[in-house]
């Protein structure tokens, strides 16, 4: 964990409610699957946001406007300075990928998989990606994943684009391991549907984001764990659905 002040260099909408923010400064170490906590003027708690990408002194975040805090974030302009805690949580275990990892993202759960895909491709893995959205208007980053060299399938719940249905309707065969992030019902359905080992990133309302308040705990096969500290990524077999 590192407390730092970063400068907004980009903050643009990707869809009606999803934004991409780029931040510059001393970002510290941020592995795929980790998250940051952003302090916003006038808001007591920080906002936990997953890391989409980190390179040199630049951090890329993709977030959805879901409440007052993220709405305030969406109004920030280039040059705004933010107090950020970086490098939070455990991150994905890249060493478990095998040769043909599968990445499954739902909605605003897609962003952390982008940084992961980049690392896996750099390691010479054959990466398949299934991205699920409600409707065609909500799709983002399909082209970006393709540009990395991933085999991408997009599903929409209303059938307006790609495969009609959910991510579980479009899972490729012969994947070696899966990494997932998305809404809880999607994660549950995925773990039930596939026999291969994998890990998922959970979401929970957090207080501090660094393990002090015990606000975000989840019961696992090996006892109570903090989503913000031991998580947010948990192995499939650890989860008690």
């Amino acid at each position, binding site marked *: *964990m590192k407390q730092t002040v970063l400068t907004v260099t980009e903050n643009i909408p990707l869809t009606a409610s999803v934004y991409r923010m780029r931040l510059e400064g001393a970002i510290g170490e941020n592995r795929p699957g980790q998250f940051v906590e952003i302090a916003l003027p006038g808001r*007591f708690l920080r906002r936990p946001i997953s890391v989409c990408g980190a390179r040199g002194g630049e951090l890329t975040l993709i977030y959805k406007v879901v409440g007052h805090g993220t709405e305030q974030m969406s109004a920030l302009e280039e040059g705004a300075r933010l107090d950020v805690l970086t490098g939070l949580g455990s991150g994905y275990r890249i060493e478990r990928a095998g040769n043909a990892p599968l990445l499954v993202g739902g909605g605003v759960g897609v962003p952390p998989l982008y940084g992961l895909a980049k690392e896996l491709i750099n390691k010479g893995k054959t990466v398949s990606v299934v991205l699920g959205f409600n409707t065609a208007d909500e799709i983002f980053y399909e082209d970006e994943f393709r540009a990395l060299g991933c085999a991408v399938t997009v599903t929409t719940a209303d059938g307006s684009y790609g495969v009609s249905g959910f991510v579980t309707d479009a899972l490729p065969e012969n994947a070696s391991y899966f990494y997932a992030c998305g809404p809880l019902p999607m994660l549950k359905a995925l773990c039930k549907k596939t026999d291969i080992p994998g890990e998922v990133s959970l979401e929970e*309302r957090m207080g*501090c984001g660094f393990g*002090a*308040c*015990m606000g*975000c*705990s989840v019961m696992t096969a090996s006892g109570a764990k903090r989503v913000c500290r031991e998580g947010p990524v948990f192995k499939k077999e650890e989860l008690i659905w």
Partner: protein
Amino acid sequence: MVNTRVTLCGITLDNPVIPASGTFGFGYEFAELYDINLLGTFSFKGTTRENRFGNPTPRIAECTAGMINAVGLQNPGVEKVVSEELPKLGKVFHKPVMANVSGFSVEDYACTCAILDREEQVGWLEVNVSCPNVHGGGMSFGTDPEAAASVTRAVKAVTKKPVIIKLSPNVTDIVSIAKACEEAGADGISLINTLLGMRIDLKTGRPIIANTMGGFSGPAIFPVALRMVYQVSKAVNIPVVGMGGVSSAEDVVEMMMAGACAVEVGAANLIDPYASLRIVKALPETMEKYGISDLNDIIGKAH
């Protein structure tokens, strides 16, 4: 050169700043960030006889200038605290620590305190009769003078360490409860625990907190806490530890002027992991600004 040293129940603190229970874990997360020996001490995570997961999530809700938590005393249980947490703590913290204890019966409190009494590093027992987030215990002992007194007596009977009773603000007359604890032998009083609060999600019309209600903390409660510290410290002759919304060195000075001899810092640690250290470092400068050469001179100055 100003003097920030204060004494709490016979033990000298380098400064009066004490991270509050439930906001500082067992210290390690913070020891990774800075030398926690710079603190006066800290009060560790509320410990019970048996291990507890606590309440279902969500158990956090944001408020204006504060937050609600309904964690519900998640902890590994006193045996594991003694066998695992304290040995780890001893490696990074070399001062007496404040052990925070909760229970669901008078016997629970006594049993847990008796086990912690044997631990050399435990300087004080802070007995929480004020947790708003558990049923059939916690706060129910702190809302009735006789029940609070019976917990105090039971704990005093099993330990020679100073016993500080942590009180709930969710009562009509906190002074009568503090006095009952004093008469039952308490060595000190700490206050306030969180205020019972609630938020509703406008999209669903349902409470945000799974447990419906939770404890409200943060800067918003500071004036309420200060008032109660003032009232209680005027009424009792034992040391009072003030807490509730403290987030700056100025707040520490104000709490001490209200009658606190030491001050706990809670929710501030959760939004700024360096908050307690920042307060310790700012204290001498703040004292100089207000012409205070010795913190002991201002305790209860407002009385």
